[in-house]
């Protein structure tokens, strides 16, 4: 942190911005972790979905701060920003399409493949919890 002091003469604002963004990233991570810890006790499925959604939103905010400030993209020319960000916008479609597809595959398989569905609803007896070798043996026994 000696650097922050040294650079103050030439460019005080930039160093201040770095520490501000560090603070924001730390707080966002702590909030994410707090939600994560809280989520362990929640059993309501729709509340869990809402909490997971808010974690994803916080993740996007963190990504924005890293790219915009640490990678300085916000301070580049508009042309430059667009040439990076516009292609990445394809991700919106990729994520929507593939997750929809995955979900649809699950539903179709559960509807038309009762054997598969039955297989995925059998609970495994918990006799040797904790250590790998034992529990993987007990898994084989089920099949």
């Amino acid at each position: 942190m000696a650097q922050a002091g040294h650079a103050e003469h030439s460019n005080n604002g930039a160093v201040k911005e770095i520490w501000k963004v560090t603070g924001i990233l730390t707080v966002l991570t702590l909030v994410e972790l707090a939600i994560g810890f809280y989520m362990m006790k929640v059993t309501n499925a729709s509340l869990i979905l809402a909490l997971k959604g808010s974690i994803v939103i916080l993740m996007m905010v963190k990504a924005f701060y890293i790219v915009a400030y640490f990678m300085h993209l916000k301070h580049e020319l508009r042309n430059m920003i667009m040439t990076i960000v516009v292609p990445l916008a394809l991700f919106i479609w990729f994520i929507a399409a593939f997750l929809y597809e995955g979900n649809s595959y699950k539903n179709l398989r559960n509807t038309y493949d009762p054997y598969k569905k039955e297989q995925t609803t059998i609970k495994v007896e918990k006799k040797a919890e904790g250590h790998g070798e034992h529990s993987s043996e007990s898994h084989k026994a089920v099949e």
Partner: protein
Amino acid sequence: MSTTTAALPTKLWNGGKSPFNVEYGKLMMWYFLMSDAFTFGAFLISYGTIRFSSNGWPDPNKVFQSFPGLGSGLPLMFVSLMTFILIISSVTMVLAVHAGHNMDKKGVVTNLVLTIIGGAAFLGCQAWEWSHLHHEGAWWGLNPFLNADGTQSSTNFTNYFFTITGFHGFHVLSGVVINIVMLIMTLTNQFEKRGHYLMIEKAGLYWHFVDLVWVFVFTCFYLI
């Protein structure tokens, strides 16, 4: 970063200089990172698709719950430490880039050393976690963990975990190597002779990208 020259956008396209007002190597680093983002994105979307198509999935709080020296039953703790190590190393990297702008060799060296230590610490944490999980019987093709609802889990969970965190860890390793090269070049006054520290900026972009990917990996595997 002389963005102030962007007063008249039309003049940027008149030729004679980069319309992006960015050095060639830095622009190419951005395009490389964009392509790398698509690679990681493809991995993570594939993981998401498989997870959405599965009837059950292991609970990350049950799988990742150990801390070296403190035993198990501590979900999220170790991965929080890893996340903070990477965030802090990203901050020291920004400070190194900033010191480079001011031609401050001592500042570049100090912060690069801190960044390298952070990267090595992260790799050490990951090595511990991998060996711990391997000891528990998890590996590519082996999944000792049950789904959250107590049903039999497939090996998709461990396959994706080891592939994606491994690919990210490999990026961290390359980042550390790149930073060591940058440190050697700084110490041998290569950048002083050139009159600028733009190489540090490019290495910095790569390092921040590694941190950025971890934000996504951490969320997708440990939190959600």
